[in-house]
């Protein structure tokens, strides 16, 4: 194995390590919010520092590989993809942290009916599944798995698009619960962003493996190999 191969292998391992951490942050953010577990929420906020440190390290590693090894072709695309995935992961980490902050700020348990009609649990699970699968696509270098992400995002978009009306109706009938309802609406917006980050990462994986640029293309084109 060449020196560059060793560096690239290490970069991949470090990226997966950060990815695993971010996915765990999202799972913990979900648990902390739905159970109003403030200790768990504080853990998420504390671990966000680790996510940020990982981002800086990956940036530096990419910079060093560019400077010392002048990667080209598939190697170049891999390092460029990692650089962008790194930003996507950091933003997803921020989202998990801000959901955890809501968990600390909310005082009363959420009305179960509100959780049900907004489909927030379903949305959380879909977002977490997307993050897990896009990581699997990266790990296995599998663009078929990466392409599935684009379809899965449709569910998040659908829940997000209906949320305004559903929450507004709920607030009209439950004026005592305005604050938690608004928090949930914010969380829905944030989870929709998690879906977008997953899609961006799927695009980067396809770019690195197939040298195809899918950014700003329609989903029907993205799904075609």
């Amino acid at each position, binding site marked *: 194995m060449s020196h560059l191969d060793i560096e690239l292998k290490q970069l991949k391992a470090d990226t997966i390590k950060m990815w695993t951490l971010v996915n765990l942050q999202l799972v913990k953010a979900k648990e902390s919010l739905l159970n109003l577990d403030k200790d768990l929420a504080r853990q998420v906020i504390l671990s966000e520092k680790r996510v940020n440190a990982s981002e800086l390290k990956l940036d530096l590693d990419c910079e060093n590989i560019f400077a010392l090894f002048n990667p080209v*072709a598939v190697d170049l*695309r891999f390092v460029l993809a990692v650089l962008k995935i790194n930003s996507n992961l950091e933003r997803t980490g921020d989202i998990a942290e801000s959901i955890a902050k809501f968990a600390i700020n909310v005082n009363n348990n959420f009305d179960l009916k509100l959780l049900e009609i907004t489909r927030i649990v379903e949305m959380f699970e879909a977002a977490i599944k997307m993050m897990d699968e896009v990581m699997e696509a990266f790990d296995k270098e599998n663009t078929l798995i990466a392409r599935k992400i684009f379809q899965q995002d449709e569910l998040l978009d659908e829940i997000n698009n209906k949320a305004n009306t559903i929450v507004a109706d709920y607030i009209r009938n439950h004026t005592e619960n305005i604050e938690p309802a608004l928090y949930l609406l914010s969380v829905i917006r944030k989870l929709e962003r998690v879906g977008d980050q997953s899609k961006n990462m799927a695009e980067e994986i396809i770019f690195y493996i197939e040298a195809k640029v899918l950014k700003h293309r329609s989903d029907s084109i993205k799904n075609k190999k």
Partner: protein
Amino acid sequence: MNKLEAQNVNVYYGANKVINDISISIKPNSVTAFIGPSGCGKSTFLRLFNRMNDYIDIFKMEGKVEIDGKNIYDKNIRVEELRKQIGMVFQKPNPFPKSIYENIVYGLRIQGIKDKNILDETVEKSLKQAALWEEVKDKLKNSALALSGGQQQRLCIARTLAVEPTVILMDEPASALDPISSAKVEELIYELKNNYTIVIVTHNMQQAARVSDTTAFFYMGELIEHDATKLIFTNPKNERTQNYVTGRFG
């Protein structure tokens, strides 16, 4: 029209086939880099364009090599005339053991040009084109051998330019130079592209990436891929090209 063109070229050294059915087209005012591992045939192929291989006894060629649409292996082609049109720069700077001035005018004197004004003008113009004039204008009568390696190489390029070729072939022109001199030669290649068609053989892939418009990858006597340099170094089509440019060869 293409400046250089090779069609179905085979080259043999005795019974050994060293170039296998290569065809390539090279546009005017462009820089083309030939890359590939040692012994892949890239230098042999380069030397076809000024018939430098003719000196090798066991050399035999099939196919067509054209410059401006004319087959240069035609019987009625005069090799001396051809080489006025096709300059060549080698790996090791090879100035004549003469003054800087005499190195530049050497080709012109062979052509019988004696007018001092023309010779002086050519010396200044060629040295300026080769980005050497400022460094040597006050010591034109000094020996060329007193120049540094990098300056000697630029002198050799100036000597090539003096006879006003249209094509310049370069065989590893910067591999014996330090990084600063090498960068100067690269800048020079970039400048010269406006007026000349340049073909460069290089082992330095980053150099190929920096200076050339198109890159041709040779392997075991075959042309594996010839495409825009940007594509060769970001998304080569052939797996062997990818393995070579990423350093995973063999």
